[in-house]
């Protein structure tokens, strides 16, 4: 494959913005989707980017909000380095396109605005303060979407400059105290819901639920949302292919991916149990107390995506009940085994988890198909 073609392939997510007249709504949806992907990307690394517990001390130091914002931005740039690959590739491709200079500048401008909007969304996510920045991002998306459809160059420029102004003002403007104050009704509703969430469950399960749904709520929703989205995506793909011979492999591969995504919860729970482990050892519980409970919890979180993937395959008679049961049981075993690779794999944990999930997918495929 020629080098430029590879660069073009890498730039595809950005080039798609300029591909053709798709309609304002389609542009708006696509831009929002890219921003959501950026938000998910930083959300998964939120603790590392935000500085964790050390920020409690740093917040007492006389550092201005603007400087803190700049530090956040610098760390985000590093964390986003992989996301910048398509942007850099697109910048190279733009230079090779036979475009008039005004259109070329417009392409660079739109890409720059998009980066600013993604950073704004990520900064808001980092501090869990979405409104009113969310509305500003959506307003900028609307301006950009209209500008991409507009044929009058003056209108295009005006809209893009307005979008750029909105995006940059949000990126560099520190969050004011007024913006940070949570709405009282929402705050109380959340507290009320959380209090009752764990009232009727075993205290140990209550701790696990609070760990995931209070302490690490963003990560939990992102991770669980990704697993549901992957399951739904697999269903959609299977449906497009009209339940042909590829359906079952697609379903199995999706389940392997879901297991890897969900197994990240082991690291979350393990890191929260860590500081309490010494006190836990003084209690009359077995040494595998949290191991068993965490595995059961993560496996139970995998039940919903499993149903989403397997149910249509069952209804369409792609798999028998026995094969579906076998797949389900081995999938739960895979989730259990992934605990070992996630917690003991060190720097190779992702690689080892992927190898394990791939081995499971292969084994399940040859057993079921």
């Amino acid at each position, binding site marked *: 494959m020629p080098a430029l073609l590879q660069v073009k392939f890498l730039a595809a997510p950005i080039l798609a913005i300029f591909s053709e007249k798709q309609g304002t709504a389609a542009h708006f949806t696509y831009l929002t989707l890219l921003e959501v992907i950026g938000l998910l990307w930083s959300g998964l690394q939120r603790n590392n980017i935000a500085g964790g517990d050390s920020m409690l001390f740093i917040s007492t130091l006389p550092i201005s909000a603007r400087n803190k914002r700049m530090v956040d931005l610098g760390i985000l740039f590093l964390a986003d380095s992989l996301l910048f690959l398509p942007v850099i590739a697109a910048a190279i491709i733009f230079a090779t396109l036979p475009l008039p200079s005004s259109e070329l500048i417009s392409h660079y401008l739109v890409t720059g605005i998009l980066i600013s909007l993604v950073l704004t969304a990520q900064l808001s996510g980092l501090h869990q303060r979405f409104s009113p920045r969310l509305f500003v991002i959506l307003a900028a998306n609307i301006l950009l979407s209209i500008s991409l459809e507009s044929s009058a160059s003056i209108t295009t420029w005006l809209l893009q400059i307005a979008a750029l102004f909105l995006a940059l003002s949000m990126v560099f403007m520190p969050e004011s105290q007024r913006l940070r104050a949570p709405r009282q009704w929402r705050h109380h509703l959340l507290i009320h819901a959380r209090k009752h969430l764990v009232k009727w469950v075993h205290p*140990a399960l*209550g701790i696990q639920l609070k*760990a995931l749904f209070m302490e690490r709520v963003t990560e939990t929703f992102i991770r669980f949302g990704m697993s549901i989205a992957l399951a739904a995506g697999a269903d959609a793909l299977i449906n497009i292919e009209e339940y042909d011979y590829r359906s079952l492999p697609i379903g199995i591969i999706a389940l392997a991916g879901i297991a890897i995504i969900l197994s990240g919860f082991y690291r979350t729970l393990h890191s929260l149990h860590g500081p309490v482990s*010494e006190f836990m050892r003084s209690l*009359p519980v077995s040494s595998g107390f949290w191991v068993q409970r965490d595995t059961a919890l993560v496996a139970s979180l995998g039940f919903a995506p499993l149903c989403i993937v397997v149910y249509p395959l069952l209804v369409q008679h792609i798999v028998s009940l026995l094969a579906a049961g076998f797949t389900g049981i081995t999938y739960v075993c895979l989730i259990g085994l992934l605990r070992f690779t996630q917690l003991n794999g060190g720097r190779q944990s992702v690689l080892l988890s992927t190898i394990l999930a791939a081995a499971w997918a292969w084994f399940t495929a040859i057993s079921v198909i």
Partner: protein
Amino acid sequence: MLRFEQLGKTYGSHSVFENLSHRFSCGTFALQGPNGIGKSTLLALLAGAQTPDTGEIWIDGHPLGGEAIAAKRRLSYVPDECPIYPFISGKDFLRFVAAAKKTKPGKETDDLVAGLGLFPYLDTRFDAMSLGTQKKFMLCAAWIGDPAVMLIDEPTNGLDAASKELLVRLFEVRQNRSVVLFSTHDAEFVETVNATVVQLDLLIGKP
């Protein structure tokens, strides 16, 4: 009720104890000694929170190594610091400890919660509590499950005068049916609870 023999613990090249043996019957005992001598380490070892390199510990007749669950069901441990999940409430913590001991917080614990003025904090997250309030919850948890051995590291740290007074009364009630072994630098408290002083530096032969 509490017995340990040939206990040894080493951190890297630093030996904290070697061949440490002792036995305690019912009563209140104050573990004393200079800083860094190993008071907290000994309490953590006796509680099973840390593992000794050598030796064995018996809690109410159950060996901590061989019958860990049975032994730990008969003991309670309060470390100096409060390493509790920051996102759980005081009530969650007490329920969890009670569930681990397969019991429910009894009247003694309820009285302690009331006496230490903890009712307003039952639904407060641990990380939103002061260190003193966290310590009070840890002390309340120590009274769950009628323990035969209570191991308490610096019980008066972070406690106000009224709470100390209550703790003295509770220790007095406990001393006839449990071993209450605590480490402290608070000489006045040791005297008030009429505790037998155990000099750890003398016990391990490092006077």
